[in-house]
């Protein structure tokens, strides 16, 4: 092939190096912040985006003052500083209040920030993409082996190692750096030694945000600042930090180098593979090295393992169940077609969130990629309709089977891991499936999805489809409840609370978790299939990060420590979204603020808070 031409290979490798450098600068703040605060900061991508927008707006004004080319670089630094200050604001106003909360809550809160920033950026900087100025003096390309290569890319290639060196100096040669490293190793010990934690954490957030802003600002000569930057960088930054080992800066550098080269050469071999290679790399690395290149085993359990505890069954719960079922059955008598549609969706999401509860609340297996099974169920059903002409009655079980199968396969890899790496592996699995659905256009229809997935004639109207969904959801939820209260469920809880003791009494933890994965996957698959038929189409967003976050939000909102929490969470979140969205064009801002408010006000979830209040009264 032509690709054997050495000058071409050299230029391609240089391109890879420059994207590696950019990726490293963007991701290394994430890994430092995680190391110290143990917060997986979803908003890191938003800070990166703000950096790019700020630089693209600020630098042209600075250049107009005509103080020479240094203003460009000063502008980059100024933008990074501004973003660093924004990081401080986020730390002081939000993160400081939730360090003690379960990891998932912190994740959710930072996702709330992502939503808020998305709307604010459009409000502040306007809807149009902003193309920043080129670096003065670096407009012309350089000749490398007879090919032109942008000189700014060479600067970027150098910037990565420079940042690595400076961060290394900061961490090794300053008191702040010593504290950061100490906190990365053992946060509690640092606290007991009397170090001012508030200052340390604020400083770390400043450093992390500064680096994110720097990463974004450095991009403006090659990329226009636009609104999709946050989520596209955050997924790759996660991969870099996980592959390198969470908290390890040199690890992140190595990971970024590998990813840059994989992307540069992957595009030649399989032009459509760009999305999938990074996550495949992550899956392969985690399968071989469960803590990434330079990561360490985490202290398992600790204060963060939360979930359903055993309680006395409520008196009269059978009567309550009957009342709920009767209420659900009677809804069509009073509700119009649209309300029924909303109710149908709430039921579907309730089942989806409930299936996640089995993994997180019962099993302590934190999955960031539950959308994988929801999407597999939806795609399974849609593909069965499209390619095999199956009816809805046959397609729904097909979707469920595909989801269970996928869960079995993914679970087999995932149960070997723990903590944040496990969560990231599930995210990688979901992203790989997303990429397959997105890029395997011939089968899945790619971004177009599959349309024409409508229910069978007898279930076509809003009322029959609602009743069908209600019946299936109630049966599935009752079955899952039974499983949670069965010895199997108790075994999962035992493994969640103390792996060592559970193993000592002879429980096979991995096999139990693997089974839990398949059961939860099947339930999520059923929800996905029902969802596909209620909308008439499937598309890759069903497998995307935001679908996984939806499930997590519903679960945490309702209350992770209660069995029925996810059902209430699904109802509240979906109703809220349905209600807020039409009222304002700033619905993401509203949703983000409500998520943050809820994390701060109801850290035990709605149902959990109500129950605590009830019990305190007695």
């Amino acid at each position: 092939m032509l690709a054997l031409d050495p000058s071409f290979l050299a230029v391609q490798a240089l391109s890879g190096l420059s994207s590696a450098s950019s990726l490293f600068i963007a991701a290394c703040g994430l890994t430092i912040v995680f190391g110290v605060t143990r917060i997986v900061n979803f908003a890191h991508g938003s800070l990166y985006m703000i950096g790019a927008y700020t630089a693209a707006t600020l630098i042209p004004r600075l250049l107009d003052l005509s103080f020479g080319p240094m203003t460009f670089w000063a502008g980059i630094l100024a933008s990074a500083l501004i973003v660093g200050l924004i990081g401080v604001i986020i730390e002081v106003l939000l993160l400081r209040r939730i360090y003690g909360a379960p990891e998932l809550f912190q994740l959710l809160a930072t996702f709330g920030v992502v939503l808020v920033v998305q709307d604010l950026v459009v409000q502040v900087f306007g809807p149009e993409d902003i193309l920043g100025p080129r670096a003065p003096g670096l407009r012309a390309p350089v000749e490398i082996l007879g090919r032109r290569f942008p000189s700014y890319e060479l600067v970027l290639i150098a910037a990565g190692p420079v940042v690595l060196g400076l961060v290394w100096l900061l961490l090794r040669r300053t008191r702040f750096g010593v504290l950061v490293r100490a906190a990365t190793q053992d946060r509690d010990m640092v606290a007991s030694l009397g170090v001012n934690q508030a200052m340390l954490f604020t400083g770390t957030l400043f450093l992390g945000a500064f680096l994110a802003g720097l990463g974004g600002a450095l991009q403006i000569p090659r990329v226009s600042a636009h609104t999709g930057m946050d989520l596209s960088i955050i997924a790759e930054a996660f991969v870099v930090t996980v592959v390198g080992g969470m908290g390890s800066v040199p690890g992140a550098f190595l990971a970024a180098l590998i990813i840059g080269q994989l992307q540069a050469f992957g595009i030649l071999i399989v032009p459509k593979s760009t999305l999938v290679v990074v996550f495949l790399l992550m899956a392969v690395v985690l399968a071989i090295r469960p803590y990434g290149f330079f990561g360490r085993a985490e202290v398992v359990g600790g204060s963060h393992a939360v979930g359903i505890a055993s309680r006395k069954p409520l008196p009269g719960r059978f009567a309550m169940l009957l009342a709920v079922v009767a209420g659900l059955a009677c809804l069509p008598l009073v509700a119009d077609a649209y309300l029924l549609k909303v109710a149908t969706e709430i039921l579907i999401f309730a089942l989806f969130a409930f299936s996640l509860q089995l993994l997180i609340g019962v099993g302590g297996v934190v999955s960031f990629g539950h959308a994988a099974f929801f999407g597999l169920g939806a795609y399974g059903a849609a593909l069965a309709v499209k390619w095999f002409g199956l009816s809805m009655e046959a397609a729904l079980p097909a979707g469920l089977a595909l989801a269970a199968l996928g869960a079995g396969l993914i679970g087999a890899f995932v149960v070997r891991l723990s903590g944040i790496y496990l969560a990231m592996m599930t995210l990688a699995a979901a992203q790989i499936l997303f990429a397959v659905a997105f890029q395997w256009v011939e089968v899945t229809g790619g971004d177009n999805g599959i349309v024409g997935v409508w229910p069978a004639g007898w279930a076509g109207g809003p009322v029959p489809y609602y009743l069908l969904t209600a019946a299936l959801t109630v049966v599935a939820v009752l079955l899952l409840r039974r499983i949670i209260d069965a010895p199997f469920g108790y075994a999962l809880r035992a493994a969640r609370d103390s792996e060592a003791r559970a193993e000592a009494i002879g429980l096979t933890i991995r096999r139990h978790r693997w089974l839990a994965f398949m059961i939860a996957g099947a339930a999520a698959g059923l929800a996905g299939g029902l969802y596909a038929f209620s909308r008439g189409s499937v598309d890759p967003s069903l497998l995307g990060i935001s679908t996984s976050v939806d499930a997590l939000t519903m679960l945490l909102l309702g209350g992770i420590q209660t069995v029925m929490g996810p059902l209430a969470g699904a109802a509240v979140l979906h109703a809220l979204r349905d209600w807020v969205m039409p009222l304002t064009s700033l619905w993401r801002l509203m949703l983000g603020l409500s998520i943050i408010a809820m994390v701060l006000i109801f850290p035990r979830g709605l149902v959990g808070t109500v129950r605590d209040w009830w019990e305190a009264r007695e």
Partner: protein
Amino acid sequence: MVKISAIRWLALGAVLALGAPAVHAQQAPIKIGELNSYARQAAFTVPYRNGWQLALDEINAKGGVLGRKIEIVSREDGATTGDATRVADELVTREGAILLFGSFLSNVGVAMADYANQKKIVYIAAEPLTDAITMAQGNRYTFRIRPNNTMQVGMLVDQAKASGAKRWAIVAPNYEYGQSAAQAFKRLIQERVPGAQIVVEQYPALGKIEAGATVSAIEQAKPDGIFNVLFGPDLTQFVREGNTRGLFEGATVLSLLTGEPEWLLPLKDEVPEGWTVTGYPWDQITEPKHKAFVDAYRAKYNDTPRLGSLLGYMVVYMIRDAVERAGSTDTEAIIKALEDAKFDTVIGPVTMRGIDNQSSMGAWVGKLVLKGAAGGMADWAYKDGTSFMPTEAEVKAVRKD
């Protein structure tokens, strides 16, 4: 859950109570549903919203249509197929919209066409350009205003014949619109330019281009012609990277939509001069009706119009005409009033062809030039869509209805 439904009811009641008093004074307005990707594709859709708002205000100031005011209920379509059909359902079942229009991405347009067919409601695809909407996936409920991919690519390929370029590269976003445009290009270039071949194809994911790698992969194949379908942030990065590496020097470049202000303005002074593009030279069009539109737009928004503004403005007037001629808000009557109907628009007469529901709106074809600090079009001409449409036989061969 029952409790939650009650809360929803109350919420709904509150919304209705707040919204209701204003409209009781006279006859209820005609509700039209609109959905678009206002968040993700703001560069196009925000000017587009300004455009339809301007038309709406003008129409209602003159008393509306059929003696009733028009109300447009506008929603965010989330830029995904599922969200769009979900929102459409809300517009139809809760808001009681008599017809739907809008959407930006082609894949969303295709899903909306399917939805329209399923729910038997008129959907006017304003912007989505894929052929599928009026060809293979077309149906009697779905209409399209803008010239589709085959028509716009046809206009460009005609310009390419003279250049003599034979070795072509294709770069297109990897979703319905890009795939459809690439397909149309492959078909038309081989039909009309004997000996033309495609030497390299690059399909970056929408919004996720790796510009450096894409440019050098194209460069490697040494094409003498490049057909570009990228737009938005992808286009900006591609152009900058291509300019730096000299990709466009000596090559004939055909580019869809790049002459439209929404995609041209972000390029600033890096406009790739000499590209043959479809676009919208709004400041050079001298027809009085169009000038009046531009003046009204600039007066109202203190901003220059984009193609989206023109489109939004035209669509609402065409809907007004159709409802007026139908004499009612009944779906069948509106379909009848749209099919084979002639509309007098600010850019001249436009006909809605009945056989595939594709309008004859054309496009401006010209070359990109740098004017001061921003780009513009030169040597342009307005090409009416009629002669570029797929033939009736082609339509009949692929449409299922």
